[in-house]
């Protein structure tokens, strides 16, 4: 039935954490796998593979998205930011500082996605209220923290 399917490699050009990237990859690869396997950016995590947990959240063209629900081809021409790309000149991003300061991190598996959801929010809305923050991270499941210290960390971040 499914014999001799030839997969045509696709060429991609995009910026990743501010740097231009050009590469070839398989057409049935998810963005998540492109990041983790091809580019060795393992800060992006896989928790559910169906866009429910948010552990794989990255920023595509300023918007938070689930990288498990995108094919690599879809990012052609886009600007991608992953957790590895938000520190500036070796300094932690203010969100990262606050996640530490407010005790927002326990096991840490959801944290990259959580921080990126918050990052996308704050870049659009510098002073979000608590409800807005909760809505912005509702797609990022955390089983450890109960979210309270995460919300505090975001609320107290000044960009």
């Amino acid at each position, binding site marked *: 039935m499914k014999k001799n399917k030839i997969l045509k490699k696709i060429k991609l050009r995009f910026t990743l954490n501010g740097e231009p990237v050009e590469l070839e990859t398989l057409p049935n690869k998810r963005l998540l796998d492109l990041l983790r396997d091809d580019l060795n950016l393992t800060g992006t995590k896989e928790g559910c593979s169906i866009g429910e947990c948010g552990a794989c959240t990255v920023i595509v063209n300023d918007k938070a998205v689930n990288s498990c629900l995108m094919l690599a081809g879809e990012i052609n021409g886009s600007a991608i930011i992953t957790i590895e790309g938000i520190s500036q000149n070796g300094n*932690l991003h203010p969100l990262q500082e606050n996640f530490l300061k407010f005790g927002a991190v*326990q096991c840490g598996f959801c944290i990259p996605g959580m921080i990126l959801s918050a990052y996308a929010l704050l870049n659009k809305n510098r002073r979000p209220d608590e409800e807005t*923050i909760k809505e912005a991270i509702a797609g990022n499941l955390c*089983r450890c923290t109960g979210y309270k210290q995460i919300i505090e960390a975001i609320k107290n971040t000044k960009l």
Partner: protein
Amino acid sequence: MKEKFNVIGKPVIRQDGKAKVTGQAKFADDYKFPNTLFGVMVRTKSTHAIIKNIDYSEIENDKNIVTIIDASDIKGAKKTGLIRKDQPVFAFDKIVTPGDVVAMLVGVDVDELRILAKKVKIELEELPSLTDPEKSLDPDSPLIHPEFNTNLVVHHPLRKGDIEKGFNESDYIIEQTYTTPHIEHAYIEPECVTAIPLEGDKGIYIIGSIQNPFTVRRIVAEVLNFPLNKVRVEQAELGGSFGGKDDIMCILSARASIAALKTKRPVKIKYTREESILESYKRHPYRMHYKVGYTKEGKIKAMKIDILADAGAYCSMTPYVTWRSVVQATGPYEIENVWTDVRAVYTNNPYTGAMRGFGSPQIVFAQESLMDDIAVSLGLTPDEIRRINGYRYGSITASGQRLENHDVNLMKVLDTACEATNFREKWLENEKHHNRRIPTIEFKDEIINKNLILSDREFVEPEDTWKKGIGLAISFRGSSLGAEGIDAAAAYLSIQSDGSAYLLCGLAENGQGMKTAYSIIVSEILGIPVENIYYLELTTAHIPDSGPTVASRSTVMGGGAVKNASEILRKRFEDFLRSQWQLTEDDLIVFENNKIYVKGKEKFSLSFSEFTALAYKKGICLASIGWYPGPKIHWDEKVGQGKAYFTYVYGAQVAEVRVNIVTGEVYIDKITAVHDPGKVINLLGALGQVYGGVTQGAGYAIFEELSKQNGFPQELNFDQYLIPTSKDVGEIVPIFIEGKDEFGPWGAKSLGEPTLELTSAAINNAIRNAVGERYFNLPVNLEEVILKRKLRPGDIQRGSL
């Protein structure tokens, strides 16, 4: 006892935090080794069957298959288990639950292997399945493991006083039955492990999402028939566990190891969420029958408890989980006459084992709900009934243990919770508004259509829709393992000549912040800044076996060991300085802020690094191994009497909710959580334990449930197995009451589990206060609130897929 602290009890930033917020922290799947192969599982569609034959002929020559592993590849134990050896690494004689794995395909391309896995022909002889634990002990029910001749896994009786006399002395008797469902741990990181064959005859190296490396080592060694020192197990950063990455990781590590040794290549197993939920163990469903006799003044005279736990297909930690239940089943109340039976039985359901709470969330839900009904029946408030019966110093528990040698702070946490929430006033006010109860619809055996259509009078006006409620629950909880297991822990502390330090404890970080808590303890004793302490990666080769990270024991036991290691060095350093500086015994040497000095003689002062350089030059040993054996406890299994735990912690939670009497929605507005964990070591970590535990408890209360069809879990991913999001739980207010205790580091005890065990009962009581209805079955979800029962789809469909 030391009362003033430099570091203890303050908010300290996690040591592993920076790696985690930058994405650099390496979890199991982030480790990549050259030449790695992957393992994909072969399962059946059966719940209970005899395996007649496994035929690989259709796939064995496929180019994608490097090798196929099954039970025939096992040189050592084919069945394992932490307590009872009933769980096969690969099923070979029977399928006893849908998660069972008969073989593992090993190759490079996981996608191809998944397709091939469906082509293995497994010849089965189907057996009748047993999925109702109530029927497990029926004589005509099938035996899950015929070798044990019974489906009874364990029976814990507890007998105290004269139960009949107690009922005779009672004015009232209340009887109620409560149930709780299977619960998934729902760690966000699914299981992942890599096994790597070591050079020569060094054995095997395993790195993965492992809760308890020493347990994995023991099981893998048994399966491989290796000595313990040839199985080296390392814990990667662990993406959540909550008790859930124990047995399952033993089995996965064993499978990966067999394949790695056979292929001489690294073999990785990485589960999808669906596989994780299908195969991993759950929290036990309980059916709990309580019969309670009490006087008209509210004094409980007798409590007869019958509990049935569904162990599922394998024993796992069931005997220990249910043992905690038997110790704590009466709740924190002094009752003269108690008769408790806790039984756990095999079924073909998913197996059940350790999960945060460990046998307590179930019984606290039942027994604390019941306490409110007793209060209501007597016209008392919930806090009054608890004050009449609750433990004080010197009280005797159901198991006959006198509560002493620590602050028995039950009344203090209760009073604090009530005052902080204005509990009694709100509760009494809400009780007045039961005039509009839930329009419960009752059905006979068959649904009669017309009942589903409302009559004019049944419509609820918008302003009458939401009802407010407040509810209370209190508990006591034994710290650490108790009489259920060997309890001791080791720690290794090695100071370097420049004053920096390595620290390692034999217990494993589960994400809760244990490493930081331990570093704080060292810092407190030796004055080294926490950031100068490097917490070593835990491998089984480098530190004595310290038992598992379970039972909220890491602070009390591991902390005790770290304190011991630090004190050994402190004593050694002081002795050295006394001779070096020619001090007397009366001179007080102070270690703080990275300095050592003599109080009142400031010329005797060294920075910590100057000191270590000096001590190193003088040949002083700068390393130590600390050890903390648990205090003695004893238990008489026949009557359930004895000193069950060496100490206890106490907690009270108040839930404030709104209930929609039309839809059954429950909004959790606020939880006030008052806990006596003993001494708080890291305030940030302690707060996080409360927020996280309460939120898991809230999910348990109102929506979490793993339902089954013929033993198959139905909610296999987070689109269906719902855990709380950021929007589901309102305010959480943690309050700590720090009681004194002679055990644990400065009296630090347990917090992780008490925070979770109370929440569902407090919420259930708040719902009753809101709507005047008692609910007996978790979760109190939409259907439960409206219909007082669950509805199950015949054929579940996945969301929008």
